[in-house]
């Protein structure tokens, strides 16, 4: 059990740097969310929270400063909260598609709110509509990848879907 967990985690780890390798100006593919969704579905909420915090802290230490930590944490946590809520209706009301897209939208909203608070300026909200629409596309892509990842994991039977 522990070995399979370690294997799955190292597999998941390989996905973490993807959001760092592809730094589009201001807009991201959000591949890190694949890891978060994996943790949320297979390992439970505490693991998902741990993965999210560590990912944000590591990315900020490596590539940004204190301010980037606040931005990424606010986006990631709002996204995680929304995905935990949406997961309650998983398979009945929502599929991974809705959870992924909802998470993307929440991530954007969280970051914009944090940015406007830190800069004490609401002008930044004019980015939000475009980010929300972009999030539909990246959310779809993330959902497709995650579904395939889940299918591989279920086929190899390393972990059971909780």
């Amino acid at each position, binding site marked *: 059990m522990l070995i399979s967990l370690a294997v799955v985690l190292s597999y998941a780890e390989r996905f973490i740097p993807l959001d760092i390798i592809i730094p589009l*100006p201001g807009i991201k593919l959000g591949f890190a969310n694949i890891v978060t969704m994996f943790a949320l579905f297979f390992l439970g909420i505490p693991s998902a929270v741990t993965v999210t915090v560590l990912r944000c802290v590591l990315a900020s230490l490596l590539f*940004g400063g204190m301010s980037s930590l606040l931005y990424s944490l606010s986006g990631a946590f709002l996204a995680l909260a929304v995905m935990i809520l949406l997961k309650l209706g998983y398979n009945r009301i929502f599929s991974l598609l809705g959870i992924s897209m909802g998470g993307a939208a929440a991530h954007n909203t969280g970051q914009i709110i944090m940015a406007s608070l830190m800069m004490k300026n609401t002008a930044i909200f004019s980015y939000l509509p475009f980010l929300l629409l972009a999030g539909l596309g990246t959310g779809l892509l993330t959902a497709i990848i995650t579904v395939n990842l889940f299918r591989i994991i279920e086929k190899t039977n390393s972990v059971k*879907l909780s």
Partner: protein
Amino acid sequence: MRLKPRAGDFLIIAAIITAAVLMALLLFEKDSIAKVAIISQNNTVLDSVRLDELEERYTIDYQGEYPGTIEAEKGRIRFSHAECPDQVCVRTGWINRPGQIAVCLPAGIIIRIEGKDTDVDIIVK
């Protein structure tokens, strides 16, 4: 397990699109002849420039943890250089329409273009 969208998914998509369109409509500003670029740092206005009346290149240096330079030409403005780690501000490129913004989050700088009829003091250099 396959990606089978449920009814709720489309509800989420519809909600996101509605929110985005509503916000875009609220924030949309008509193109105008008179354009004022307002440069602020953490809600303090550093400078404002009448872009439409600008005849020569105009640069503004800003200070702080991540200093940089803003460059304005007739009708448009951009971050031309910045010391910030992500360079998102520089890659934003030129902005030229009322309502558009360019932002450097690490430095706390926002450039916003406003149309005519604003109560901002206009400095033309």
